[in-house]
């Protein structure tokens, strides 16, 4: 049986390899990854690192990968935030709030993501006004068909001191937290932790910033001719992708959060209250840690889905991995096998490493049985 499987696999692989080699030869395509170092000759509308037409395909690959990571990171943050709020709202004792949250979940998770993406991009963002008629907020944030323009912080002389202050604040907040912890272990008294730490973290850098003569100013976007220059621009493709991905994934996250909280036995809440813990504390110390054990594994798989779904960007030409690499580069070079293999490889490495991490966490946090 096993021999048969191995043999048929081998036959299939050699057959495919033979066909491929013959096909490549007849089309005159050289195989190998040498093309990565040749000049790309195309531009990319959003890149985090220096890139222009004369950069290599390899560099285009890195730019595209970074763009994938950017959209995934923003999407994950937003989806988690919105998802937790909606998930908790679904369990609210308020009938109307629970119904509204339920409606959100049912609407957004039952409509294909690609359709939502098209809606945001073609129906909403493409209908924004032209740069001259931009919607502006206090003349510093501008929204138009070319994107969302935000002021860009520019560091001046002496910004290093502010960073130093932030570091010191972080260190002292950590020390304060440990001291309070030790104090509670020793005496049972609780000391305030959150507010003092927040004051340190926000106050110290702000103080240094003011004392140092504000070595930080903002560069505002300005209308010049037909377009805005300066500032940070959020291109509409990115905005549409982030909106669609986070609204869609949030619906799934909400369901996971709801299931997680429901999975914690009612007795746990009652026991925590019986011990005299306040509502907030019992939630934070008893309910949430137990719910997290149920929430985290499916949550990670949702994050993975989000990363994989970000490849739908190819449909609206946001320059991420699939649209730049499996699209433009593939068309220009014709190196189908190498390009697709590299693209799939990236996603594969990402998901396998995250699921390995997940398995490790699972084993780590599993309920330890007695005996």
């Amino acid at each position, binding site marked *: 049986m096993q021999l048969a499987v191995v043999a048929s696999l081998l036959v299939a692989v050699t057959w495919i390899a033979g066909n491929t080699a013959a096909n490549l030869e007849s089309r005159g395509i050289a195989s190998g990854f040498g093309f990565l170092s040749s000049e790309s000759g195309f531009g990319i509308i959003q890149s985090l690192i220096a890139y222009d037409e004369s950069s290599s395909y390899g560099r285009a690959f890195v730019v595209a990968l970074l763009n994938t990571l950017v959209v995934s990171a923003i999407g994950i943050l937003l989806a988690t935030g919105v998802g937790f709020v909606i998930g908790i709202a679904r369990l609210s004792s308020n009938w109307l709030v629970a119904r509204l949250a339920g409606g959100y979940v049912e609407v957004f998770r*039952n409509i294909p993501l690609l359709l939502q993406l098209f809606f945001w991009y073609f129906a909403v963002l493409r209908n924004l006004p032209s740069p001259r008629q931009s919607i502006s907020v206090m003349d510093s944030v501008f929204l138009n068909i070319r994107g969302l323009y935000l002021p860009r912080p520019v560091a001046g002389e002496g910004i290093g001191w502010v960073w130093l202050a932030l570091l010191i604040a972080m260190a002292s907040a950590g020390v304060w937290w440990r001291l309070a912890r030790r104090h509670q272990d020793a005496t049972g008294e609780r000391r305030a932790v959150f507010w003092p730490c927040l004051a340190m973290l926000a106050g110290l850098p702000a103080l240094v910033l003011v004392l140092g003569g504000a070595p930080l100013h903002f560069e505002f976007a300005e209308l010049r001719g037909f377009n805005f220059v300066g500032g940070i621009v959020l291109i509409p493709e990115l905005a549409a992708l982030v909106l669609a991905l986070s609204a869609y994934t949030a619906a799934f996250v909400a369901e996971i959060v709801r299931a997680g909280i429901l999975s914690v036995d009612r007795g746990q809440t009652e026991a925590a209250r019986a011990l005299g813990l306040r509502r907030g504390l019992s939630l934070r110390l008893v309910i949430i840690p137990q719910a997290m054990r149920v929430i985290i594994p499916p949550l990670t798989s949702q994050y993975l889905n989000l990363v994989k779904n970000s490849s739908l960007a190819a449909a609206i030409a946001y320059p991420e991995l699939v649209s730049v690499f499996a699209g433009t580069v593939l068309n220009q070079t014709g190196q189908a096998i190498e390009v697709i293999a590299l*693209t799939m490889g990236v996603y*594969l490495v990402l998901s396998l490493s995250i699921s390995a991490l997940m398995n490790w966490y699972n084993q780590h946090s599993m309920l330890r049985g007695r005996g």
Partner: protein
Amino acid sequence: MNWLRNNLFNSPLNSLLTLASLGLLWLLLPPLVGWALVDADFHGSSRADCGSGGACWVFVINRLDQFLYGLYPLEQRWRVNCVLLAPLLFIVLARSRRAGRIRNWAAAIGLFIVVATWLLHGGWGLPVVETTRWGGLMLTLVVAAVGMACSLPLGILLALGRQSELPVVRAVCVAFIEFWRGVPLITVLFMASVMLPLFLPEGVSFDKLLRALIGVTLFESAYMAEVVRGGLQAIPRGQYEAAAAIGLGYWRRMGLVVLPQALRLVIPGIVNTFIALFKDTTLVLIIGLFDLLGMVQAAIADPAWLGYSVEGYVFAAAVFWLFCFGMSRYSQALEARLDQTTHERN
């Protein structure tokens, strides 16, 4: 009154939330209803008939034919309608006394695939309709139905392989499953459209639709395998051992004892995978097939109807939503019923 006090205004915070929610509804609902119904235009034949400022459903109504059938020839559409009647036959079969036998189901589905392919594609007396003319909701349903019908058995085989005692089989199945689950569907479709032709001998060419179907099936079968594996793992060891003790071989052990119990446990998971598959069918438009969303997208770009993208998307969203919501409700009902029967037995 009591209900209001208990459910909406039982604490200051809740009262505030209620008021905020009502405010939100007040902001959203009246304009929405006004746009979609009150101010909307339903009758007419061109954009000139859409002047009232609301939704222009004239656009959707005029293009409905294309949204449903794509470019399928007008005089041949009865064939598509015939195929669409098939679910009724399945419901009749499900109600009949023979429904319990898995063999009957397999035979019925096999027969249906043959007849449906003949009806849709043609040949043997019917004029041939090339798959390039297939489109709209009909294509969506074809991709979804084929994906479901093929990925379930393949997924079951993969799940069995993953649990197998033969290390080679297990390794192959694990690698297969993890590979497909690790990559996005869109790269799979890209691969099916640019790499598959390279893998085959020269001169052999595949229909574009068939390539997409292969891609979708392989992709979803990996997800299906993981769902089925959950069910296999939930069956107590004793069942496996008892089946072996009465002298059943591997396939009968699985087919008669383990799988019937395991599949029943994971029906909700299977339906969820079907829902995901149904939503994923939209991705075929990226490799140039015109499913429902693809037809809508093409119609929006038509200069005669510029500016009605929202109407088109809302229509497509409503169709997809009805299918997916229906399936999820069905799965919930099924779950509740299964829960009930297992509790009764215990």
